[in-house]
């Protein structure tokens, strides 16, 4: 400011009324509604189930970055839960849908570089590792699928875990907070690869309990899963770029643990 105000500067304490982990309830409700609406739009099929999965999977990470890990996970879970009832055609198995949504928001929100939530990646990475071991381990040791087929078919899952554990996590957070739109878009794409991958892993574990794909299905999953995951990343980058630019422009209050 060129001319300093006459009044004494006061300490501003932020209180947004009803909030969850620093995210206003209104934001949570709004984003849950967006997730529910996108649950109507099928993105691709789920092999062996005759069902599809929804476009909303592309924005689970975005919701986590906008609201933080806890509120993001809750908004995703509420939206997914509503979607299960209103758009059952995109839900293979409700537990998988909701747990996947929850994990996506949690993982994305935990990619923070600063604050207490920046340390959440460590326990989460242990949990996701256990989930992967259970998922892939059942395929190999219980169902007799070949290890190379399972590794190839679950490429998006283990690569997401690796990128989550490595410093790429912080790199994504840095890009998301960057002023340049291109960096933000890149952060959204790569970040969606990571968080939506972990969301997919969590949901797949639940689905796999039901469908027990044989070895051939793991092979077929290689190109399909990759293509679908790229579509998720594209959805996250396109929607997220507009949303983050709009939020910055309107000066709307940023939740305490937001990562953008």
């Amino acid at each position, binding site marked *: 400011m060129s001319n300093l105000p006459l009044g004494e500067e006061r300490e*501003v304490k932020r209180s947004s009324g009803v909030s969850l982990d620093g995210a206003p309830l209104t934001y949570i409700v709004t984003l849950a509604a967006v997730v529910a609406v996108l649950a109507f739009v099928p993105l691709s099929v789920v092999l062996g189930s005759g069902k599809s999965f929804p476009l909303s999977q592309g924005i689970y990470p975005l919701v986590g970055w906008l609201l933080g890990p806890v509120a993001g996970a809750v908004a995703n879970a509420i939206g997914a839960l509503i979607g299960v009832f209103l758009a059952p055609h995109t839900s293979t198995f409700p537990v998988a849908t909701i747990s996947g949504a929850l994990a996506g928001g949690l993982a994305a929100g935990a990619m923070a570089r600063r604050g207490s939530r920046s340390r959440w990646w460590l326990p989460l990475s242990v949990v996701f590792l256990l989930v992967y071991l259970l998922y892939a381990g059942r395929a190999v040791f219980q169902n007799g699928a070949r290890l190379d087929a399972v590794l190839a078919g679950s490429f998006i899952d283990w690569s997401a875990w690796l990128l989550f554990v490595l410093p790429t996590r912080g790199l994504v957070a840095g890009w998301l907070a960057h002023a340049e739109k291109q960096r933000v878009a890149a952060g959204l794409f790569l970040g969606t690869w990571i968080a939506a991958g972990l969301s997919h892993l969590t949901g797949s574990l639940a689905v796999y309990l039901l469908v027990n794909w044989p070895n051939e299905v793991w092979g077929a999953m290689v190109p399909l899963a990759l293509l679908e995951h790229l579509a998720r990343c594209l959805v996250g980058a396109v929607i997220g770029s507009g949303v983050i630019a709009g939020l910055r422009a309107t000066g709307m209050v940023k939740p305490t643990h937001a990562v953008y």
Partner: protein
Amino acid sequence: MPFTEGTVPVVQLEQVSYLYPHAGAPALKDISLKVRPGEFLGLIGPTGAGKTTLCLTLNGIVPQFYGGRFFGRATIAGLDTLEHPSSTLARHVGMVFEDPETQLTATSVENEIAFALENLSVPREEMRARISWVLEAVRLEGMEHRHPHELSGGQKQRLAIAAALALQPELLVLDEPTSQLDPVGAQEVFATVRELNRALGMTIVMAGHASEELAEFADRIALLSAGALVALGTPDEIYAQVELLRAHHLRPPQVAATFYLIGRTGAEPPRIPVRLEEGKTALHRLAATSGVNPPARLPHSPAGEGPPLLSIQNLTYRYGDGTLALCDISLDIRQGEYVLVIGQNGAGKSTLVKHFLRLLEPTAGSVRVAGSDTRACRVSELARRIGYVAQNPDQQLFNATVWDEVAFALRNLGYAPGEVAARTRESLESLGLLARRAVHPLSLPRGERARVVIAAVLAMRPEVIIFDEPTTGQDACGARAILDVSKRLHELGKTLIVITHQLYLMPEYAERVIVMGKGTLLLDAPLREAYHQVALLRSTYLAPPQAVLLARELPGEPPLLTPAEVAGCLACVLGGACT
């Protein structure tokens, strides 16, 4: 009413300054202001002056929700707004915002009012008593079980006031509560607020551009500009300063503008009246002493010529739920006409114009554009010929920069990059937005957001341009800028259709008026004739501009339209130049 020493103010601002997060300039700057109990304070200022920010400061949303930097002290009902959460302040301050639609969430009038009370754990019996009381106070008795969306615009806003009132606040803050209402709806809201103020002694702070109404109802007026308090005084003191208001892009009441012009001719009215009845009295006195000399010839609107460009024959439209929105309407609009469509909220104005773009299809009858039945045309084809600027600009904004927003449609229509750039630049320049080309449209104030949408439509160079309430939420300067663009387009031979409730803005622009009421065509006449059909206008909840009502007080009731014309009538005989 002056502030008397010893009165404990409901609002006390001491050197309040505020910066939004990441903002370079303060939204409020060094504001010191006291509002005493039972006072009605009008808050006026150009777009972006800080009116909304000041309103939000009064219940602590600024800065508690937005963050940012806050200087000075704001005390409401004795509570420091930085030391008490908004939930506590909400018991003392009721808020009503511009758009009633955004505030109503419940499925019945009764539930809407109960919502805030439930959140504050008010006992059930107390809640029932308060609901009855507030419904009576805002004259919505008997509508307890109606769905809020069944109410008219004025009724919805009164319901929003009722919901705020149920908390029994000491202070009621209203941020442009009438800008989206027809004149009678606005009058209803003002009358309700004034009654609450007088009967219950409730303190009122109302921000807005409705100068005629604020002059009538407010005790004091605070003029904000660029975040600073520029002037504070009674309506007589503030609205009589016509040059000060114009310097801040504000519009004085037409009665004040009329007597200001009379005064400039050499005649010296004892003071500039700011209310209609005072103006009528002063005009009678002047006319009795000096006589009047109405102009022998008044400018007339040229009649449209040639075959109709837009033609509606026996159009009836019924919404899916059975609501009859338009009933057997027939009219023709010719190339180059400037048509004003007016009528109460819900009269069917927007429904009518949406038929030109085939956004709606007739239930019966036909709509033709340049001779082709719209049923046989694609919406995209019609959109190239007819530009439509909808009521809410935010519904038409989705790009990341102002430039991209304006260029969007051109790129999609396959224009060469050079042509896209040239048209975009020209369109932005014509609306004074070129300097804003790199910013996000949503970061602009509402008035400028509306101008971005208009720029995007103009860049398409359509033959017909429809403006649906283009001046809502604009200050006088912003409204003029938009209408001046419409005038330039008209001069270029474009056909203009404007829907607005702000009749005082249109005499310099429109030629022909279509008056609608409850889905029917009540009148189709030249503007000068239509504006003087006072009874008919009132039948569709419209109020003629004050200048028209003043003119009707003159001998012979000359069909004058503007303060300049009325003043000119007297200026002739008072020694000034005749118009």
